[in-house]
């Protein structure tokens, strides 16, 4: 148990950050705070992917001068894949915030508990 924590500490921290974002999504009634919770969950997944591809003792994949063999560089694939994910997260947050503005103009409040209790239909 202790050896599991000391050898996987980075990935455990990432999963806990995912849990923090999930609880932010569930416990708040304000719409803006729910959007912040979604954004925290996205960020934790990006961090998880980047920590998988790391190896201690190697350097960044920028080949200056002579080529030192394939055992001297960190792999470039996970960071390149997460660029697409970051862009999708930004676009989703922008769209959700525009929907919040329309919600406010329709109902007059951004607190979900008032809207869900008063409208019976």
């Amino acid at each position: 148990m202790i050896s599991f924590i000391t050898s996987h500490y980075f990935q455990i921290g990432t999963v806990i950050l995912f849990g923090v974002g999930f609880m932010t999504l569930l416990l708040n009634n304000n719409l803006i705070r729910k959007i912040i919770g979604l954004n925290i969950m996205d960020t934790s997944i990006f961090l998880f992917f980047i920590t998988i591809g790391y190896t201690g003792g190697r350097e960044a994949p920028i080949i200056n001068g002579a080529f030192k063999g394939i055992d001297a560089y960190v792999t470039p694939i996970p960071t390149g894949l997460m660029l697409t994910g970051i862009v999708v997260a930004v676009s989703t947050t922008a769209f959700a915030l525009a929907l919040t503005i329309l919600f406010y103009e329709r109902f007059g409040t951004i607190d979900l508990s008032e809207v869900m209790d008063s409208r019976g239909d």
Partner: protein
Amino acid sequence: MTTPIIRRIVGWLLPFLWIFSFYIMLFGHLSPGGGFSGGSVLGACLILDRHVNGANAFGARFTGERLLKLSLAALLLYGILKGQSFLAGVLHMNGLPIPLGTPGNILSSGLILPLNVLVGIVVAVAFYLIATLFEEGHL
């Protein structure tokens, strides 16, 4: 919202931010950076300029319609520049020969430099239009 302190300090800071964003975009194949991060810093520069200088800012000379058309043209130009190698791969032909140059110079590595600039333009225009187009009741 803009006090004289902010106006003075942003006036000193903006030239360095402009040069920094162009450095990130143009040196994407030699050092860390590339189109997306350079475009984000460029968009932040345009928004800061607009908040401090008002109607005399750099982005205020281009209206919303012209910036949208510029962004669409950049995206279509990316598709045309790389579309010839996509189609050549499908039809089992060789693509157009593009000179690679010596690694380490700025003008090397074929099409990577124009593609970085085009992606940076799309991202910067997107950030600037979402943040500032709804101030004076446009659209």
